[in-house]
Structures are given as C-alpha cells and as structure tokens.
C-alpha cells in the first residue's frame, strides 16, 4: 500500500455486513489495506456530524454497509437512508464530493458486492 493512500472507513453491522467482511477473508479474496472496518449494532446510531467529522479527521471515503431490508431492527434502514440523504446535502454545502460516501447493503455472504463497493470507493478516493 502506498504510504499516502487515503483511508477508507467501512461501517458494518454486527448481524450482516461484518460477517460478510469475514466471509471475504475466509474465501482469501483480496482488497487494499487502506480499508478500516468498524462494526456497530446498526449505523442508524450515527448522527450526520459523525460522517462530516470523519472527513474532517482525514478519512478519504466512507462506505456504510447496512443490512438493508434484512435489518433486524424495525424501521432502522429507512431512518438511516433519510439521514444519509441529509449528510449528502451537508457534504455538498462543504464541497465534499458525494461519491466519497456510499450507503449500500451487504449481507453475510455478499462477497462479490463487498469487493465491488471497495473497488468503486478506491476510485472515488483516488480521484478526490
């Protein structure tokens, strides 16, 4: 990994995308090492300023890997989508490119989708 490569923060869920990220490792698939996975019960807990604060701290890109329609928490995904839409508005106001934040759905076995999201974010971060 080149030393100055911008870091990508990947927010995963305990129930779904964190085991999905494990599945990628179990299959010995590869992606770049500038990727940092944190896990939460559900990303719905983060307020808008959490994302903006992460960009301010120097994070290059953020992928929110939610559980989508498989989310075990009632109404959480809908609330998360609305919140992310508000984050995009604030990013626009600050001149942060929209492709540096991505809300997606990753299941426990979504290995290809996981890699695709990282690959796309790598491009967005490199172009930023």
């Amino acid at each position, binding site marked *: 990994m080149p030393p100055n490569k911008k*870091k990508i923060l990947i927010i995963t869920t305990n129930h779904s995308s964190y085991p999905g990220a*494990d599945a990628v490792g*179990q299959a010995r698939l590869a*992606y770049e*090492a500038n990727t940092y996975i944190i896990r939460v019960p559900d990303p*719905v*807990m983060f307020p808008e300023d959490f994302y903006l604060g992460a960009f301010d701290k120097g994070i290059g890109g953020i992928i929110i890997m939610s559980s989508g329609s498989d989310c075990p928490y009632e109404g959480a995904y809908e609330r998360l989508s609305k919140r992310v839409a508000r984050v995009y508005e604030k990013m626009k106001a600050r001149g942060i490119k929209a492709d540096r934040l991505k809300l997606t759905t990753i299941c426990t076995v979504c290995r290809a989708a996981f890699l695709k999201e990282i690959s796309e974010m790598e491009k967005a971060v490199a172009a930023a």
Partner: protein
Amino acid sequence: MDEKIKEEASKDNYRQEPKVGVYICHCGGNISDVVDVKKVAEELSKYPGVTVAREYPFMCSSNGQDLITEDIKNLGINRTVVAACSPSLHDLTFRGVLQRAGVNPYLHEHVNIREQDSWVHKLDHAGATAKAIKLAQAGVEKVRRKDPLNAIRVAAEQRVAVIGGGVSGMRAALSAAGKGLEAVILEKGPRLGGKLLDLGRLYPSGEEASAVVKKLEDLVRADKKITVHTDADIDFVGGFVGNFKINFKLPGGKSQQVKAGAIVMATGYEHYKPYKGEFGYGEAANVLTLPEFISLMKKLPAGRLEYGGREIKSLALIHCVGSRQVEGVHKPQADGKINDYCSRVCCTAAINTANQIKEKYPGVRIYDVYRDIRTYGMMHESYYEQASKNGVLFFRHTETDQPVVTSDRTGHNVKVKDVLTWGEELEFKADLVVLVTGLVPSDISLIKSQMKMPSSADRFLQEVHLKLRPVELANAGIFIAGAAQYPMDSTEAMASAGTAASKAGILLAEPDIPLEPFVAVVDEKKCTGCGLCPAECSYDGALTMSEKNGKKVAVVNPALCKGCGACVAVCEPRAIDVAGWTLAQFDAMVEAIAKE
C-alpha cells in the same frame, strides 16, 4: 426500572485509571506470516494508555489466556485488547478470561486482524502490518472509553406460549414440556394438526399424515404440562422477554390471557392460491392444486381415479405455480411483490404424489411439467428416479416460456416448449391438470405488527442469522418453529420446532434471564427533555419521556430496547448512547484510524 428488571450484581464497580493490556495473536502463522506481529506489539506498547503489549502464537490457548490472567494479577491490567481472529469466534472466550480474573467482562475489545487483515492482504505485508497497528490502536481508544457493564436480569415466567398447533407447534410444546416448562398451545383452528390434516401419505416414512398428527396429539393431550386452546383468536400480543402477555378469545367471546417467558411462533404457512385463470384454475373444470388433489385422492378407492364423476386417464402436473416467479412474466401478489423464492418442498411432494398415483392407478398417464426439479433432502432424488421408472413423462421449460393450458369439453391441451428436446414445442392432452402450488406465509400481520417482528423479503419471519442464530427473531425471547420461517417439510419443521423449544428452554433455565446490556442508556444530567428520541424508537414502551426529580427526561426500558441506536443519532446533546457502543468511542476510533 420495572420491578421485574434489575441489573446483575456487579463484580466490580470500580472506576480505576484504565490500564490496557494489548495481546497480538500469531494464530499459528495465519496472522504472523503476513503481519509483523512484533512490530505491532512494539508500536502498541508505546501507545498512550497501554501498560503492556505482547504477541503470542495462540492467544486463545490456555497458555495464551494465562498470559492475560497473569498481567491482570501482576500489572493491574483492567482492560484488554486482543488482536486476533474474528470476534465471532473468540470475543466471548476473552470476556470469560476477564470475568474469571475478577475484571468486568465488558472491558474487553476484540480486534480482527485475521479475516479482515492478514487473510485479505497477503501480498501487502507492510500494508497489513500498518493496518493491524491502526486497528489495535483504535481498539485501545475504544476500550479506554468503555464502562463496566452488568448483564440485565429479568424475572421470567416459566412458561412457553406456542402460537400454532400444527406439527411444529405440537413438537415445540412437547420439547418444552420435556425440559420441565409449562407449554400453552394457542391454535386458531378447531383441531390440532394444522396443514397435515389435509395431507395424505408422507415422504420419506410413508406414514399417513393423519397418523402422525394423532401420535403427536395423543402425546400432547397426555402431557400435564401442556395446555391446549383450539379456536383461539389472538387479539393482543405484548410484553417483553420473560414477561409476554397474549390475549385471546375463545368461541362465545370469552377472553383469556396467557403469560409466558418465551413465545414460539409455529404459525406455519398457507398454500398459494392460483388467481382465476392461472393455467385455467377457477375457470376450466378439472384444474386443481396439488393440495386439493391430495385431499381428493385420500377419499378415492383404488382402481379408478375420477374427478367430478369422470374417469381420469391422464394427468398433467405443472410445477412452480406461485413460486420462483419472475418479474414481468408472473402476475404480482396483492402487495405488488412476486414470490421469487423456491418453495422447496413442492417438487418432492409432486413426484411423491405421482408415484402414489402410479401405485394406486397404474394405468393413468402422468406428464410432469417443470422448470427445475429440486427434490432436496436425503435420498429424495430416488423419488424422481422411481417416477421415471414408473413411466412419468417429464417436460422441462424455461422461466420465460411458461407452459400454456387450453381447455375445452374434451379436457385440457398442454403446450410446452421443451428444453429436454432442444426447445421443441410439444403438446399433449390431459384429463386433469394439477398445479403444484408453492407455500406462502400465514397471515399473522396482527401479531407481527404488535411485536414488530421482522420479515424477510419473502414475507416469512426472519431469523437473526441463518447459521448462527437460526430460530431466533431479533425480538428477544421469541423463537420460530417450522414453516413460519420459510417453506419446509414436516420432518424439517419438527426438527426446527425442537431447536426453538431448546432455545426457549435455555432462556428459561433460570428464573431470572440474563440479557446483554447493549441497550440505550440516558445521561439524565445531559438530557434536555426535548422529546425527540421516543419518536425515533420503533419499539413500543422501549423509550418514553418521564418526570424524574422534577425534570422531564428520556427513560429506557432495557428489556424492550433492542440497542439499534436510532435514538442516539437525534440527540444533539449526546445524552443517549448504546451501552458498550458509544459515539465517543467511535469518534476516538476514527481519530486513531485517520491519524497519520
């Protein structure tokens, strides 16, 4: 807090200066072949707040665990970070080490440098090492901000309510009773047995479905720990793990209530009902569904297969009716969705029926029209082989080229673009068309909405994790048995029911239930009483506004809170957090990760 809910007695309520021990696992060579573990330990030993950092070949071994115990004893370590495999494997192992050494088990953080580092960055040793350092540092930041937590204990009713009195429900009640629990079956129909009452000879045992029902019912009725209510019309389900309440009405309008520590949802399925005109159903005579045909066959004597007074000499089975539907090809259901899932059991049921027809009425010609044959299950492929030997003719179509049934007074004409003959359009006459219909979820919308039970995209009840927690709903204390979860046959349904009852038995093994303390907590000093958070909460009664010491504050019911954190995001003064997963922890982790 409700009088039935209390915090587990704390082993350590200390507020000592955090002393973090960091332990880097080689995992044989799984990690250390890629990650420079010595460098990680060296870097971490210099990190603020870290008292000691060590690397070891197998941290999960008893020698590895002893290292931590010794450091707790000799160096006063009161928080640990273990950088190793996935937390799904050993988070609990290391929590146990802390607990045995007298440290609060929730003052541990497990960092994944195997599945999410060494295994995915094999060709980038420097990158993987740098990442391991950052992840471990983020772990230190998190654990430094952790508070000791204590499991929540809830007094529990030693009773299981089983909703549904089919085979799954009866099996679940018997298993629960076998574990010493009381079980109450609430069945909406007039009899126990559910869908099995309509079926005939079952695969793989060859037993009559009615005999299986009788056997189970006799056991249920003889068990003093099981109470059965048939014709029970449930109008309310509420409460929380350990303390559920179910109100139901019996014929005559008499209301009753069951209190239960756990609920088993054995609500089963419905057969897909073809719409009017689907392959002639409801319009042409002699078009039946497979369940209707099985009911018919049960009543008919051997020798002559007849329907509507006419002898049936040829019969077409059409598979995947109401299952594996394709957008743009099939008509959507009432909710606008298509049933794109496979109903799993219908292929075997259809071919088993074809073999029974051949056995009972050898002269009847059977045409089996399918998209894919999926006789999943031990030895079930042999039914297909048997059917082929019995002379059943198979035709295979694609998902877009559906078979076409046209009917007149002489019978039905079935046209199939047959893949097995390289797309040739074949046509045959059939006296009877049997639609092999799929399974759809039962209508349990009232219970689902009252308890906020999650459904999958297929509308069946959704388990937390198909492999790790296969019979649990996200709602603590509610388990799924049988085809309420997804289409399954009676053998699978009974196995699933036994599992659900076992989980309920484990939950209710003690009069007080311990729960993970990862629920919302309110800092009353910071709470401004704005009232924004209850509106974000999807769970009735989990988060309310209340007067405390003359001040309006948010109050959490820890037994009802699911710990999703939806309330956290809307709290501007950051007065609410999910215990163990606080925003301050995540901010500090991101800071550590971002820092060059």
